[in-house]
């Protein structure tokens, strides 16, 4: 394992507290990038500084783009719905900024702006860490999370041009909901932007009342886990009449009698849960949609709007209070978490080799390396300037791929009758 002692030290220790070491980044040959060298070597600094220190300055500045995080069980239709929402938003003249967090997906049917697959090599992760398919998804997401502050910076920049950010997540819902990286990603977004969780669930499998209650219980757990506005999105209504689900949500007795008709289930846990969840149904937005034919998209957008308002009144104050009360503590904890993540990634494998390597895969300047975090700058003005550079450089990396995809997407659009049907 060729972890540089220097970078190792930085990773364990307080990466960000080392504020005066901007110049030291030159020690790492890996920081070399195409383009102006003085400029690029200092780029990595502000990103890490911003993750831990800037949120204070951003406090109250929440009018960034609306972030929708698409979460759901495997094959519920997250990707299709992302595509549908995208084409709706494009039609309205407000194209979203799209981030794909599924390292193992096939080419998604929408134009991706930031793709985890351009940053982390999933197959390489399997090799380097000697992991199976699932472990590799977890680790890829961890690697990406160590770079998420850079993504945040980019989103900040997109404030002016984009009203929406869409985030597609891996099929394994647990990997996103119950992992350190999932928390880091969700929390850092929610801290800065109005963020809404879109829980996508598949109506077809929900005809079984047990699956239905199981799904709703899971959705409710997401509410408690993230404390973010949640929209339960019942997808695929083109394939099945959604009346049953609407009834079950509004009428406990309707659900219970459906349940009683299933003889294979004998315990009354399901109906107790249904009773317990009545209050959940009352408080949470739920919409019936079809990613295929676009049904329900107006309802969906209304729900998003309501949720954003809720974010402002319910979530934002909570976050601000958190910031006031445990400012230092929370930040430190996040930093520790990130530091630990990095350390683990380094000690259990050659983390660097899993990132797309500058000049080989992406062919552009690349700041995304674990060990660049060490350099930081306190000078705010300076930081802002650099932040922009940073953004440029990070975009450069992703640009090539993004352009390729969006060209491909436009082609697809041209061929298919509609965006939604072209790829599905």
């Amino acid at each position: 394992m060729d972890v540089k002692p220097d970078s190792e030290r930085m990773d364990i220790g307080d990466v960000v507290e080392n504020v005066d070491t901007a110049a030291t980044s030159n020690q790492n040959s890996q920081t070399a990038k195409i383009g102006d060298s003085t400029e690029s070597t200092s780029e990595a600094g502000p990103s890490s500084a911003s993750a831990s220190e800037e949120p204070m300055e951003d406090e109250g500045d929440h009018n960034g783009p609306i972030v929708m995080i698409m979460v759901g069980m495997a094959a519920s239709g997250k990707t299709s719905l992302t595509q549908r929402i995208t084409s709706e938003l494009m039609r309205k003249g407000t194209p979203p900024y799209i981030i794909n967090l599924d390292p193992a997906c096939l080419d998604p049917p929408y134009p991706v702006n930031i793709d985890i697959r351009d940053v982390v090599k999933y197959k390489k992760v399997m090799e380097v860490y000697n992991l199976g398919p699932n472990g590799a998804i977890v680790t890829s997401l961890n690697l990406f999370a160590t770079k998420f502050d850079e993504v945040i910076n980019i989103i900040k920049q997109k404030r002016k041009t984009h009203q929406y950010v869409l985030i597609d997540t891996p099929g394994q819902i647990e990997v996103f909901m119950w992992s350190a990286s999932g928390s880091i990603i969700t929390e850092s977004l929610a801290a800065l932007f109005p963020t809404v969780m879109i829980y996508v669930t598949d109506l077809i499998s929900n005809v079984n009342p047990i699956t239905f209650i199981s799904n709703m219980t899971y959705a409710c757990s997401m509410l408690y886990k993230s404390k973010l506005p949640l929209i339960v999105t019942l997808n695929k209504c083109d394939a099945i009449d959604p009346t049953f689900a609407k009834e079950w949500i509004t009428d406990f007795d309707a659900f219970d009698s459906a349940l009683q008709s299933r003889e294979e289930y004998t315990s009354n846990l399901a109906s107790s849960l249904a009773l317990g969840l009545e209050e959940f149904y009352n408080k949470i937005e739920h919409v019936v949609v079809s990613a295929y034919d676009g049904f329900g998209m107006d309802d969906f957008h209304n729900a998003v709007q309501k949720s954003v308002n809720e974010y402002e009144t319910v979530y934002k104050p909570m976050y601000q209070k958190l910031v006031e009360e445990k400012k230092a503590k929370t930040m430190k904890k996040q930093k520790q978490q990130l530091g630990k993540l990095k350390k683990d990634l380094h000690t259990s494998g050659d983390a660097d080799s899993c990132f797309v390597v500058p000049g080989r895969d992406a062919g552009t300047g690349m700041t995304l390396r674990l060990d660049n975090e060490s350099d930081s700058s306190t000078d705010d003005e300076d930081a802002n300037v650099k932040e922009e550079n940073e953004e440029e450089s990070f975009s450069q990396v992703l640009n090539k791929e993004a352009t390729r995809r969006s060209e491909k997407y436009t082609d697809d659009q041209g061929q298919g009758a509609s965006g939604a049907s072209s790829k599905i």
Partner: protein
Amino acid sequence: MRFAQIVMGPAGTGKSTYCGHLEKHAQATKRAIRIVNLDPAAEKFDYEPLADVRNLIQVEDVMEDEELKLGPNGALLYCMNYLMDNLEEWLLPEIGEEYDGDYIIFDCPGQIELYTHMDLMKRFVKQLDQWNFRVCGIFAMDAHFLTDGAKFIAGSLVALSTMVNLEIPHMNILTKMDLLGKRDRRNIERFLEPDAHDLLKEEAETPWNAKFLELSEALGKVLDDYSLVKFVPLDIRKSSNMENILLIADMVMGVSEDADVKVKDFEEPDPEEEQDRDLDREFSEYLGTLNVND
């Protein structure tokens, strides 16, 4: 009568680690407990499996299959389906005949869809029942993610979303306790009390808590009614933790009706903080709620 634990929980929470330590603990305490790996995507584990599903089918092979064209998720489901179709032919011969004190731990994959959307695991549980097994579900959750009352509710709900499908008695275990600092550990201890009702009481009055107050209370009630023990800590360095889990599982399955081993306290250095819960009584009440007929 045979006995089994089905070990479930999100990816990387420590299911296989628990199984490995349980094996060692069993050897040390001379209990015949054997482990079966049912995760076709398992990378490594440090126990000697009695049977290993990877000898039947492997996720990698399925993923590489040119015709199937499956991603990690689809491939796993494919494997599990294949396993369920081969329980009689493959698994039964592997685990052999029933004998006295027969006790098997099944180390399962983490994907929640297996439990919520497919009847795969339900089929498995039914099959075990036919094979004369009594079953206890073990749901493993990483203690790092359960640092406050709301997250405890979240974790309990994830477990219930699984258990509502399987209809087996279960307990949640809190893994990686050894990695927590003292303060976090103290914090978590507060949530190990029997009353889920109070989970959110101590939290600050935020607009969020106010908005969902009624929901939290309703859920707290469901959790109280349906869990014998909501969370049992697992610090893998402490054999007392392992013993505690085994004991509760024994009671759940009725391994020995006159279990005379005492439940050990989880913080060993704190002898005065005795766990004076009447687990036997709680257990019978719990069974009542489950309609388990012995």
